[in-house]
């Protein structure tokens, strides 16, 4: 079998493959450090048993669902108290409950979200309305 203009075709192919895989070359050898969410806020440091609203594994993977439920319960159903599995109660509020403990948004929430490539790293469409905690760093 004969390829017409084999030379040009092959060069073209090589350039195409090279361009197509630029993202891989671009990032090669650059290890992105895994996120390191900090728990050293004043409120958490004062806790005797350091635990979140849900057990660690559940809150880590499921906090967006929890926030979604809280939002529905508060805004649409008029319920504002959450009873956790261990019987503890929480005021269901992103701004007033989550962020009271996690008052270091840039060192906590944003750490993971930037790593996970969420838009601008900050879940921007919550914080245009909900007021992010003041941080002095």
């Amino acid at each position, binding site marked *: 079998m004969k390829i017409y203009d084999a030379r040009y075709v092959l060069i073209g192919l090589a350039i195409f493959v090279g361009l197509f895989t630029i993202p891989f070359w671009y990032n090669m050898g650059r290890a992105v450090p895994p996120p390191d969410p900090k728990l050293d806020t004043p409120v958490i440091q004062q806790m005797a048993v350091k635990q979140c609203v849900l057990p660690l594994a559940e809150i880590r993977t499921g906090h967006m669902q929890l926030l979604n*439920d*809280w*939002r529905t*319960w508060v*805004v*649409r*159903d*008029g*319920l*504002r*108290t*959450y*009873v*956790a*599995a261990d019987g503890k109660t929480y*005021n*269901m509020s992103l*701004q*007033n409950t989550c962020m009271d403990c996690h008052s270091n948004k840039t060192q906590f929430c944003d750490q993971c979200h930037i790593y996970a490539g969420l838009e601008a790293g900050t879940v921007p469409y919550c914080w*245009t*309305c*909900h*007021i992010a905690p003041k941080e002095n760093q």
Partner: protein
Amino acid sequence: METSRRNFLKISGVCALGLTALPVADVFGESDLPKAIKNPQALTGQHWAMVVDMKKCWEKGKEGCKDCILACHAVHNVPDIGSIKEEIKWIWTNHYENVFPGQENEYNVKNLEGRPFIALCNHCTNPPCVRVCPTQATFKRPEDGIVMMDFHRCIGCRYCMAGCPYGARSFNWRDPRPFIKTELNMRFPTRERGVVEKCNFCAERLAEGLLPACVEACKVGALSFGDLADPNSVVRKLLASHFTMRRKPELGTQPNVYYIV
């Protein structure tokens, strides 16, 4: 193995019957999961309403007093844009002929000239804004009748503004944050560009056992808030002992804000 058609149908039938039992199992299985409950200290009512005593406001209040408006707008981080066209308001004042159009005559208009009337969302029993909202971002709470907004669902189409006959809704034409002139209330969210907003009868305060901010702020007691379903409530007592008016009754929206004039 051979199965007759008859046997196959029998087994299928039994299996289908088993499936119908699934929802029952779900109901029993779920009972002890974490749950959301109402705040124990919340004020509860079945039919919230407000009575605005304009006489008290004019006779006992200071000239030009805006306590109710300032309190509401501070608590809810309502911006002061500084232009009528883009104004954001939850509670405001207007002239008699604009608040009660069609009920003016040349004498009462004279008498009431320069007298401010307090206006806010009427939390109608039959709210047109709720009917026209395509996303159900605005809805009537079944338990107490508050016409609520779920800002998360608002797409900014402004049908509700066209539907509301009272002008109770404002649109955020721009980012409101730079225009919040009062000290930011860190406990309540702001809004963002592209959503509509209005009075929420202080749903977030009722949940904590507090009266609406405007009612609390009025030093002369011109604003009263209570449950129409309770014959002993302040609002029922006021309605029983005074002649009251509502805005644009001919529209059939059944407002829940009453005026003593």
